[in-house]
Protein backbone atom coordinates (compact mmCIF):
# COMPACT_ATOMS: atom_id res chain seq x y z
CA UNK A 1 0.00 0.00 0.00
CA UNK A 2 2.84 2.33 0.84
CA UNK A 3 4.14 1.79 -2.69
CA UNK A 4 0.85 3.04 -4.07
CA UNK A 5 1.01 6.12 -1.86
CA UNK A 6 4.62 6.80 -2.82
CA UNK A 7 3.91 6.45 -6.51
CA UNK A 8 0.84 8.69 -6.21
CA UNK A 9 2.86 11.33 -4.40
CA UNK A 10 5.53 11.13 -7.06
CA UNK A 11 3.01 11.66 -9.85
CA UNK A 12 1.36 14.51 -7.96
CA UNK A 13 4.69 16.16 -7.29
CA UNK A 14 5.84 15.90 -10.90
CA UNK A 15 2.63 17.53 -12.05
CA UNK A 16 1.83 14.53 -14.22
CA UNK A 17 -1.51 14.25 -12.43
CA UNK A 18 -3.60 16.88 -10.72
CA UNK A 19 -5.38 14.56 -8.31
CA UNK A 20 -5.59 11.00 -7.19
CA UNK A 21 -8.75 8.95 -7.18
CA UNK A 22 -8.34 6.23 -4.62
CA UNK A 23 -9.62 5.15 -1.27
CA UNK A 24 -9.97 6.84 2.06
CA UNK A 25 -9.87 4.91 5.32
CA UNK A 26 -13.25 4.13 6.73
CA UNK A 27 -14.30 4.60 10.32
CA UNK A 28 -14.94 0.93 10.96
CA UNK A 29 -11.92 -0.67 9.39
CA UNK A 30 -13.89 -2.26 6.62
CA UNK A 31 -15.84 0.61 5.08
CA UNK A 32 -13.36 2.63 3.03
CA UNK A 33 -14.83 5.14 0.62
CA UNK A 34 -13.71 6.29 -2.82
CA UNK A 35 -12.03 9.63 -2.50
CA UNK A 36 -10.02 12.26 -4.30
CA UNK A 37 -6.62 13.26 -2.93
CA UNK A 38 -4.87 16.40 -4.03
CA UNK A 39 -2.02 16.63 -1.57
CA UNK A 40 0.75 14.40 -0.29
CA UNK A 41 -0.43 14.93 3.30
CA UNK A 42 -3.92 13.73 2.60
CA UNK A 43 -2.46 10.63 0.93
CA UNK A 44 -0.29 9.97 3.95
CA UNK A 45 -3.11 10.48 6.40
CA UNK A 46 -6.10 8.91 4.75
CA UNK A 47 -5.18 6.72 1.79
CA UNK A 48 -5.93 3.06 2.13
CA UNK A 49 -5.92 0.10 -0.23
CA UNK A 50 -7.04 -3.29 0.99
CA UNK A 51 -9.40 -6.16 0.27
CA UNK A 52 -12.42 -4.04 1.09
CA UNK A 53 -11.67 -1.56 -1.68
CA UNK A 54 -13.98 -3.46 -4.00
CA UNK A 55 -15.98 -0.72 -5.71
CA UNK A 56 -15.34 -0.12 -9.37
CA UNK A 57 -13.81 3.36 -9.67
CA UNK A 58 -14.10 3.59 -13.43
CA UNK A 59 -17.49 5.28 -13.33
CA UNK A 60 -16.09 8.12 -11.22
CA UNK A 61 -13.85 8.89 -14.15
CA UNK A 62 -16.83 10.29 -16.04
CA UNK A 63 -16.85 13.23 -13.67
CA UNK A 64 -13.06 13.26 -13.34
CA UNK A 65 -12.78 13.58 -17.13
CA UNK A 66 -14.49 16.95 -16.89
CA UNK A 67 -11.89 18.30 -14.50
CA UNK A 68 -8.72 20.09 -15.51
CA UNK A 69 -5.63 17.98 -15.66
CA UNK A 70 -5.13 14.28 -15.33
CA UNK A 71 -6.58 12.14 -12.60
CA UNK A 72 -4.59 9.22 -11.29
CA UNK A 73 -6.95 6.34 -10.79
CA UNK A 74 -6.34 2.92 -9.29
CA UNK A 75 -8.16 0.25 -11.25
CA UNK A 76 -8.40 -3.44 -10.56
CA UNK A 77 -8.18 -5.76 -13.54
CA UNK A 78 -11.97 -6.06 -13.78
CA UNK A 79 -12.43 -2.27 -13.52
CA UNK A 80 -10.34 -1.77 -16.62
CA UNK A 81 -12.95 -3.54 -18.72
CA UNK A 82 -15.47 -0.94 -17.60
CA UNK A 83 -13.03 1.84 -18.33
CA UNK A 84 -12.51 0.59 -21.87
CA UNK A 85 -16.23 0.34 -22.38
CA UNK A 86 -16.65 3.91 -21.14
CA UNK A 87 -14.01 5.06 -23.61
CA UNK A 88 -15.95 3.30 -26.36
CA UNK A 89 -19.04 5.21 -25.34
CA UNK A 90 -17.16 8.52 -25.19
CA UNK A 91 -18.03 8.88 -21.53
CA UNK A 92 -14.48 9.16 -20.24
CA UNK A 93 -11.45 10.79 -21.69
CA UNK A 94 -8.40 8.53 -21.89
CA UNK A 95 -6.17 11.57 -21.97
CA UNK A 96 -7.51 12.73 -18.63
CA UNK A 97 -6.67 9.49 -16.88
CA UNK A 98 -3.44 8.12 -15.56
CA UNK A 99 -4.30 4.54 -14.79
CA UNK A 100 -2.40 2.46 -12.32
CA UNK A 101 -3.53 -1.11 -12.68
CA UNK A 102 -3.53 -2.57 -9.21
CA UNK A 103 -3.04 -6.27 -8.69
CA UNK A 104 -5.96 -8.12 -7.23
CA UNK A 105 -6.16 -10.99 -4.80
CA UNK A 106 -9.92 -11.05 -4.66
CA UNK A 107 -12.15 -8.44 -3.06
CA UNK A 108 -14.01 -8.91 0.19
CA UNK A 109 -17.67 -8.75 0.97
CA UNK A 110 -18.47 -7.69 4.52
CA UNK A 111 -21.98 -9.04 3.95
CA UNK A 112 -20.50 -12.47 3.26
CA UNK A 113 -18.68 -12.36 6.60
CA UNK A 114 -21.85 -11.24 8.37
CA UNK A 115 -23.77 -14.02 6.66
CA UNK A 116 -21.46 -16.49 8.40
CA UNK A 117 -23.03 -15.28 11.64
CA UNK A 118 -20.20 -12.98 12.62
CA UNK A 119 -21.72 -10.09 14.57
CA UNK A 120 -20.42 -6.80 15.86
CA UNK A 121 -17.38 -6.63 13.62
CA UNK A 122 -14.83 -4.07 14.75
CA UNK A 123 -11.76 -4.84 12.72
CA UNK A 124 -10.68 -7.26 10.04
CA UNK A 125 -7.03 -8.05 9.60
CA UNK A 126 -5.41 -10.04 6.84
CA UNK A 127 -7.24 -8.03 4.18
CA UNK A 128 -4.11 -6.12 3.24
CA UNK A 129 -3.14 -6.45 -0.40
CA UNK A 130 0.42 -7.29 0.64
CA UNK A 131 -0.60 -10.27 2.74
CA UNK A 132 -1.02 -13.78 1.45
CA UNK A 133 -4.78 -13.38 1.64
CA UNK A 134 -5.63 -16.77 3.03
CA UNK A 135 -7.17 -16.12 6.41
CA UNK A 136 -8.92 -13.14 7.87
CA UNK A 137 -8.96 -12.45 11.58
CA UNK A 138 -12.14 -10.71 12.55
CA UNK A 139 -12.22 -8.84 15.82
CA UNK A 140 -15.77 -8.45 17.08
CA UNK A 141 -17.62 -7.19 20.09
CA UNK A 142 -18.27 -10.79 20.88
CA UNK A 143 -14.81 -12.25 20.47
CA UNK A 144 -12.36 -12.92 17.65
CA UNK A 145 -13.15 -15.12 14.68
CA UNK A 146 -11.12 -16.58 11.86
CA UNK A 147 -12.57 -16.66 8.40
CA UNK A 148 -11.14 -18.01 5.17
CA UNK A 149 -10.35 -15.17 2.77
CA UNK A 150 -11.86 -17.08 -0.11
CA UNK A 151 -15.17 -17.60 1.66
CA UNK A 152 -15.39 -13.87 2.33
CA UNK A 153 -14.86 -12.86 -1.29
CA UNK A 154 -17.44 -11.20 -3.49
CA UNK A 155 -19.31 -13.47 -5.87
CA UNK A 156 -17.58 -11.90 -8.86
CA UNK A 157 -14.13 -12.88 -7.63
CA UNK A 158 -15.04 -16.56 -7.70
CA UNK A 159 -15.80 -16.26 -11.42
CA UNK A 160 -13.01 -13.78 -12.13
CA UNK A 161 -12.40 -12.88 -15.77
CA UNK A 162 -8.67 -12.85 -15.14
CA UNK A 163 -6.09 -10.63 -13.55
CA UNK A 164 -4.89 -8.96 -16.74
CA UNK A 165 -5.44 -5.22 -16.94
CA UNK A 166 -7.09 -4.36 -20.24
CA UNK A 167 -5.90 -0.79 -20.20
CA UNK A 168 -3.47 1.01 -17.93
CA UNK A 169 -0.35 3.09 -17.83
CA UNK A 170 1.45 0.92 -15.32
CA UNK A 171 0.77 -2.08 -13.15
CA UNK A 172 1.55 -2.27 -9.43
CA UNK A 173 1.27 -5.02 -6.85
CA UNK A 174 0.72 -8.71 -7.39
CA UNK A 175 -2.40 -10.62 -8.22
CA UNK A 176 -3.60 -14.00 -7.22
CA UNK A 177 -5.91 -16.23 -9.21
CA UNK A 178 -9.27 -16.38 -7.48
CA UNK A 179 -11.43 -18.12 -10.04
CA UNK A 180 -12.84 -21.27 -8.52
CA UNK A 181 -16.29 -21.42 -10.09
CA UNK A 182 -17.75 -21.48 -13.57
CA UNK A 183 -19.07 -18.13 -14.67
CA UNK A 184 -22.26 -19.52 -16.16
CA UNK A 185 -22.93 -22.31 -13.67
CA UNK A 186 -25.62 -20.37 -11.83
CA UNK A 187 -27.28 -19.40 -15.09
CA UNK A 188 -27.30 -22.98 -16.27
CA UNK A 189 -28.86 -24.07 -13.02
CA UNK A 190 -31.73 -21.68 -13.54
CA UNK A 191 -32.06 -22.56 -17.20
CA UNK A 192 -32.58 -26.16 -16.17
CA UNK A 193 -35.54 -25.26 -13.97
CA UNK A 194 -39.13 -25.63 -15.09
CA UNK A 195 -40.87 -22.41 -16.17
CA UNK A 196 -42.84 -22.35 -12.92
CA UNK A 197 -39.70 -22.79 -10.82
CA UNK A 198 -37.94 -20.06 -12.74
CA UNK A 199 -40.88 -17.77 -12.30
CA UNK A 200 -41.13 -18.43 -8.57
CA UNK A 201 -37.40 -18.01 -8.13
CA UNK A 202 -37.27 -14.61 -9.76
CA UNK A 203 -40.53 -13.49 -8.24
CA UNK A 204 -39.17 -14.16 -4.80
CA UNK A 205 -35.88 -12.43 -5.52
CA UNK A 206 -37.43 -9.41 -7.21
CA UNK A 207 -40.10 -8.99 -4.57
CA UNK A 208 -37.24 -7.90 -2.31
CA UNK A 209 -36.37 -4.98 -4.57
CA UNK A 210 -36.91 -1.61 -2.93
CA UNK A 211 -36.15 0.43 -6.04
CA UNK A 212 -33.30 2.21 -4.31
CA UNK A 213 -31.50 2.32 -7.69
CA UNK A 214 -28.17 1.42 -6.12
CA UNK A 215 -27.63 -1.23 -8.81
CA UNK A 216 -28.27 1.31 -11.52
CA UNK A 217 -26.33 4.15 -10.01
CA UNK A 218 -23.25 2.10 -9.34
CA UNK A 219 -23.26 0.45 -12.77
CA UNK A 220 -20.59 1.82 -15.13
CA UNK A 221 -22.77 0.82 -18.10
CA UNK A 222 -25.75 2.71 -16.65
CA UNK A 223 -24.06 5.99 -17.29
CA UNK A 224 -27.07 7.72 -18.76
CA UNK A 225 -27.41 11.30 -17.71
CA UNK A 226 -31.03 10.60 -17.11
CA UNK A 227 -32.37 7.09 -16.90
CA UNK A 228 -35.50 6.22 -18.88
CA UNK A 229 -37.06 5.29 -15.59
CA UNK A 230 -36.51 8.83 -14.36
CA UNK A 231 -37.79 10.59 -17.45
CA UNK A 232 -41.17 10.76 -19.06
CA UNK A 233 -39.98 9.57 -22.45
CA UNK A 234 -41.65 6.20 -22.12
CA UNK A 235 -44.29 7.05 -19.57
CA UNK A 236 -42.48 4.58 -17.35
CA UNK A 237 -41.15 6.92 -14.70
CA UNK A 238 -41.68 5.00 -11.53
CA UNK A 239 -40.42 4.96 -8.01
CA UNK A 240 -42.88 2.63 -6.43
CA UNK A 241 -42.52 -1.03 -5.74
CA UNK A 242 -46.24 -1.44 -6.09
CA UNK A 243 -46.32 -4.93 -7.38
CA UNK A 244 -43.92 -7.35 -8.86
CA UNK A 245 -44.35 -6.17 -12.42
CA UNK A 246 -42.52 -2.90 -12.11
CA UNK A 247 -39.49 -4.60 -10.71
CA UNK A 248 -39.50 -7.01 -13.63
CA UNK A 249 -39.85 -4.18 -16.10
CA UNK A 250 -37.07 -2.26 -14.41
CA UNK A 251 -34.63 -5.10 -14.13
CA UNK A 252 -35.31 -6.60 -17.55
CA UNK A 253 -34.97 -3.27 -19.28
CA UNK A 254 -31.93 -2.34 -17.24
CA UNK A 255 -30.28 -5.59 -18.18
CA UNK A 256 -31.33 -5.10 -21.79
CA UNK A 257 -29.94 -1.60 -21.91
CA UNK A 258 -26.57 -2.80 -20.71
CA UNK A 259 -26.60 -6.00 -22.79
CA UNK A 260 -23.48 -6.13 -24.89
CA UNK A 261 -22.03 -3.31 -22.79
CA UNK A 262 -22.05 -4.93 -19.37
CA UNK A 263 -18.59 -6.17 -18.52
CA UNK A 264 -19.94 -8.35 -15.72
CA UNK A 265 -18.11 -6.28 -13.09
CA UNK A 266 -20.57 -7.51 -10.48
CA UNK A 267 -21.14 -4.14 -8.82
CA UNK A 268 -24.93 -4.45 -9.07
CA UNK A 269 -24.99 -7.58 -6.95
CA UNK A 270 -22.43 -6.18 -4.57
CA UNK A 271 -24.39 -3.06 -3.75
CA UNK A 272 -27.93 -4.44 -3.59
CA UNK A 273 -29.05 -3.85 0.00
CA UNK A 274 -31.45 -6.75 -0.30
CA UNK A 275 -28.86 -9.12 -1.69
CA UNK A 276 -30.67 -9.73 -4.97
CA UNK A 277 -28.29 -11.59 -7.30
CA UNK A 278 -28.70 -9.04 -10.06
CA UNK A 279 -25.78 -10.37 -12.04
CA UNK A 280 -28.04 -13.26 -12.99
CA UNK A 281 -29.79 -10.97 -15.44
CA UNK A 282 -26.73 -9.48 -17.06
CA UNK A 283 -24.86 -12.72 -17.16
CA UNK A 284 -27.77 -14.41 -18.88
CA UNK A 285 -27.53 -11.87 -21.68
CA UNK A 286 -23.78 -12.38 -21.84
CA UNK A 287 -24.24 -16.12 -22.08
CA UNK A 288 -26.88 -15.77 -24.78
CA UNK A 289 -24.74 -13.35 -26.75
CA UNK A 290 -21.82 -15.75 -26.53
CA UNK A 291 -23.96 -18.64 -27.71
CA UNK A 292 -25.85 -16.85 -30.43
CA UNK A 293 -23.32 -14.41 -31.80
CA UNK A 294 -19.94 -15.69 -30.75
CA UNK A 295 -17.96 -14.94 -27.64
CA UNK A 296 -17.88 -11.32 -26.72
CA UNK A 297 -16.40 -9.65 -23.69
CA UNK A 298 -17.40 -6.03 -23.35
CA UNK A 299 -14.48 -3.81 -22.46
CA UNK A 300 -11.76 -6.01 -23.88
CA UNK A 301 -11.01 -3.11 -26.14
CA UNK A 302 -12.43 0.30 -26.74
CA UNK A 303 -13.36 0.02 -30.42
CA UNK A 304 -15.23 -3.16 -31.34
CA UNK A 305 -18.92 -2.69 -32.05
CA UNK A 306 -21.12 -4.26 -29.44
CA UNK A 307 -23.23 -7.28 -30.33
CA UNK A 308 -26.46 -5.30 -30.31
CA UNK A 309 -25.16 -2.73 -32.74
CA UNK A 310 -23.91 -5.38 -35.11
CA UNK A 311 -25.41 -8.33 -36.94
CA UNK A 312 -24.65 -11.03 -39.44
CA UNK A 313 -26.94 -12.07 -42.25
CA UNK A 314 -27.42 -15.53 -40.81
CA UNK A 315 -28.01 -14.74 -37.14
CA UNK A 316 -30.27 -17.15 -35.31
CA UNK A 317 -33.97 -16.42 -35.43
CA UNK A 318 -35.81 -15.49 -32.21
CA UNK A 319 -37.67 -18.78 -32.53
CA UNK A 320 -34.48 -20.48 -31.31
CA UNK A 321 -35.73 -19.65 -27.83
CA UNK A 322 -38.78 -21.85 -28.33
CA UNK A 323 -37.03 -24.47 -30.38
CA UNK A 324 -34.26 -25.25 -27.96
CA UNK A 325 -37.05 -26.21 -25.56
Amino acid sequence: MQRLIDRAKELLASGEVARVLGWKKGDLGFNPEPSYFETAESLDNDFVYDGFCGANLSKYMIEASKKDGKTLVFLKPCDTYSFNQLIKEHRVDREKAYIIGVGCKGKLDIEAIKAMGVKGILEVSGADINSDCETLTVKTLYGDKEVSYNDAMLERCHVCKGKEHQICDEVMLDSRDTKDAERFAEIEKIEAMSPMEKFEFFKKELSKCIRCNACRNVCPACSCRKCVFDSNKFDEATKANVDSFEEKMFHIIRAFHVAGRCTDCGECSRVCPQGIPLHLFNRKFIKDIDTFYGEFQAGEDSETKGPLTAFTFDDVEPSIVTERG
Partner: protein
Amino acid sequence: MSMNNEFKPKIVAFCCNWCSYAGADLAGSSRLQYPADVKIIRVPCSCRVNPMFILRAFEKGADGVIMCGCHPGDCHYSTGNYYARRRMTLLFSMLEYLGIENGRTRVEWVSAAEGVKFSTTMNEFVDKIRSLGENVRLGDLRCKD
Protein backbone atom coordinates in the same frame (compact mmCIF):
# COMPACT_ATOMS: atom_id res chain seq x y z
CA MET B 1 -68.75 -7.10 -24.44
CA SER B 2 -68.62 -10.83 -24.97
CA MET B 3 -71.39 -12.74 -23.30
CA ASN B 4 -69.83 -16.16 -23.00
CA ASN B 5 -66.91 -16.98 -20.79
CA GLU B 6 -64.65 -18.07 -23.59
CA PHE B 7 -61.11 -16.70 -23.11
CA LYS B 8 -60.57 -13.79 -25.44
CA PRO B 9 -56.87 -13.10 -25.54
CA LYS B 10 -55.53 -9.62 -26.10
CA ILE B 11 -52.89 -9.78 -28.76
CA VAL B 12 -50.73 -6.94 -29.98
CA ALA B 13 -49.04 -7.26 -33.36
CA PHE B 14 -46.29 -4.82 -34.32
CA CYS B 15 -46.03 -4.69 -38.10
CA CYS B 16 -43.48 -2.83 -40.15
CA ASN B 17 -44.99 -0.43 -42.61
CA TRP B 18 -43.28 -1.74 -45.72
CA CYS B 19 -43.71 -5.50 -45.64
CA SER B 20 -45.78 -6.91 -42.83
CA TYR B 21 -48.39 -4.17 -42.60
CA ALA B 22 -48.81 -4.51 -46.34
CA GLY B 23 -48.94 -8.30 -45.90
CA ALA B 24 -51.75 -7.78 -43.41
CA ASP B 25 -53.48 -5.53 -45.91
CA LEU B 26 -53.15 -8.26 -48.48
CA ALA B 27 -54.58 -10.81 -46.06
CA GLY B 28 -57.48 -8.39 -45.69
CA SER B 29 -58.06 -7.81 -49.37
CA SER B 30 -57.82 -11.58 -49.91
CA ARG B 31 -60.43 -11.99 -47.15
CA LEU B 32 -58.20 -14.40 -45.24
CA GLN B 33 -59.75 -14.75 -41.81
CA TYR B 34 -57.94 -14.60 -38.53
CA PRO B 35 -59.29 -13.91 -35.05
CA ALA B 36 -60.28 -10.40 -34.07
CA ASP B 37 -58.13 -10.76 -30.94
CA VAL B 38 -55.18 -9.53 -32.99
CA LYS B 39 -54.74 -5.75 -33.11
CA ILE B 40 -52.05 -4.32 -35.31
CA ILE B 41 -49.81 -1.37 -34.52
CA ARG B 42 -48.00 0.13 -37.46
CA VAL B 43 -44.34 0.96 -37.03
CA PRO B 44 -41.95 2.10 -39.74
CA CYS B 45 -39.62 -0.85 -39.28
CA SER B 46 -39.24 -3.81 -36.98
CA CYS B 47 -36.18 -2.06 -35.60
CA ARG B 48 -38.51 0.58 -34.18
CA VAL B 49 -39.97 -1.96 -31.75
CA ASN B 50 -38.50 -1.30 -28.36
CA PRO B 51 -38.50 -4.19 -25.89
CA MET B 52 -40.20 -1.71 -23.58
CA PHE B 53 -43.23 -1.67 -25.89
CA ILE B 54 -43.54 -5.42 -25.60
CA LEU B 55 -43.21 -5.42 -21.84
CA ARG B 56 -45.62 -2.52 -21.67
CA ALA B 57 -48.20 -4.52 -23.60
CA PHE B 58 -47.87 -7.38 -21.16
CA GLU B 59 -47.99 -5.01 -18.22
CA LYS B 60 -51.25 -3.55 -19.47
CA GLY B 61 -52.84 -6.91 -19.95
CA ALA B 62 -51.80 -8.32 -23.32
CA ASP B 63 -51.71 -12.09 -23.48
CA GLY B 64 -49.44 -12.30 -26.47
CA VAL B 65 -47.21 -10.01 -28.52
CA ILE B 66 -46.04 -10.74 -32.03
CA MET B 67 -43.69 -8.70 -34.13
CA CYS B 68 -43.62 -8.92 -37.91
CA GLY B 69 -41.10 -7.40 -40.25
CA CYS B 70 -39.61 -7.73 -43.69
CA HIS B 71 -37.67 -10.89 -44.38
CA PRO B 72 -34.00 -10.59 -43.47
CA GLY B 73 -32.30 -9.06 -46.46
CA ASP B 74 -35.46 -7.31 -47.63
CA CYS B 75 -35.66 -4.55 -45.06
CA HIS B 76 -36.79 -1.27 -46.56
CA TYR B 77 -34.07 0.36 -44.51
CA SER B 78 -31.63 -2.42 -45.47
CA THR B 79 -30.54 -3.44 -41.99
CA GLY B 80 -33.33 -2.70 -39.54
CA ASN B 81 -34.67 -6.21 -39.15
CA TYR B 82 -31.20 -7.59 -38.47
CA TYR B 83 -30.98 -5.42 -35.38
CA ALA B 84 -34.56 -6.25 -34.47
CA ARG B 85 -33.76 -9.94 -34.80
CA ARG B 86 -30.94 -9.75 -32.29
CA ARG B 87 -32.92 -7.60 -29.89
CA MET B 88 -35.93 -9.88 -29.93
CA THR B 89 -33.89 -13.06 -29.67
CA LEU B 90 -32.26 -11.77 -26.52
CA LEU B 91 -35.47 -10.39 -25.07
CA PHE B 92 -37.41 -13.60 -25.68
CA SER B 93 -34.62 -15.64 -24.22
CA MET B 94 -34.69 -13.45 -21.13
CA LEU B 95 -38.45 -13.80 -20.77
CA GLU B 96 -38.12 -17.55 -21.03
CA TYR B 97 -35.38 -17.44 -18.39
CA LEU B 98 -37.69 -15.53 -16.09
CA GLY B 99 -40.25 -18.27 -16.38
CA ILE B 100 -42.62 -16.55 -18.78
CA GLU B 101 -44.32 -19.18 -20.90
CA ASN B 102 -42.59 -19.87 -24.17
CA GLY B 103 -44.71 -18.77 -27.05
CA ARG B 104 -46.27 -15.62 -25.64
CA THR B 105 -43.92 -13.74 -27.89
CA ARG B 106 -43.11 -14.41 -31.47
CA VAL B 107 -41.33 -12.88 -34.43
CA GLU B 108 -42.36 -13.68 -37.95
CA TRP B 109 -41.03 -12.24 -41.19
CA VAL B 110 -43.90 -11.51 -43.53
CA SER B 111 -43.46 -9.86 -46.89
CA ALA B 112 -46.00 -7.64 -48.59
CA ALA B 113 -46.86 -10.57 -50.85
CA GLU B 114 -47.48 -13.01 -48.04
CA GLY B 115 -51.09 -12.38 -47.11
CA VAL B 116 -51.58 -16.09 -46.62
CA LYS B 117 -48.59 -16.34 -44.36
CA PHE B 118 -49.80 -13.39 -42.35
CA SER B 119 -53.18 -14.94 -41.77
CA THR B 120 -51.80 -18.42 -41.04
CA THR B 121 -49.30 -16.94 -38.62
CA MET B 122 -51.99 -15.01 -36.78
CA ASN B 123 -54.25 -18.05 -36.58
CA GLU B 124 -51.42 -20.14 -35.23
CA PHE B 125 -50.40 -17.48 -32.76
CA VAL B 126 -53.90 -16.95 -31.43
CA ASP B 127 -54.29 -20.72 -31.02
CA LYS B 128 -51.04 -20.82 -29.13
CA ILE B 129 -52.07 -18.00 -26.81
CA ARG B 130 -55.44 -19.60 -26.24
CA SER B 131 -53.71 -22.81 -25.25
CA LEU B 132 -51.46 -20.88 -22.87
CA GLY B 133 -54.39 -19.05 -21.34
CA GLU B 134 -54.39 -15.69 -19.66
CA ASN B 135 -51.08 -13.98 -19.03
CA VAL B 136 -50.76 -13.89 -15.27
CA ARG B 137 -47.01 -13.80 -14.87
CA LEU B 138 -46.23 -10.48 -16.51
CA GLY B 139 -49.26 -8.28 -16.00
CA ASP B 140 -49.74 -5.51 -13.53
CA LEU B 141 -52.60 -6.36 -11.22
CA ARG B 142 -53.74 -2.77 -11.16
CA CYS B 143 -54.75 -3.08 -14.79
CA LYS B 144 -56.95 -6.07 -14.16
CA ASP B 145 -59.88 -4.23 -12.62
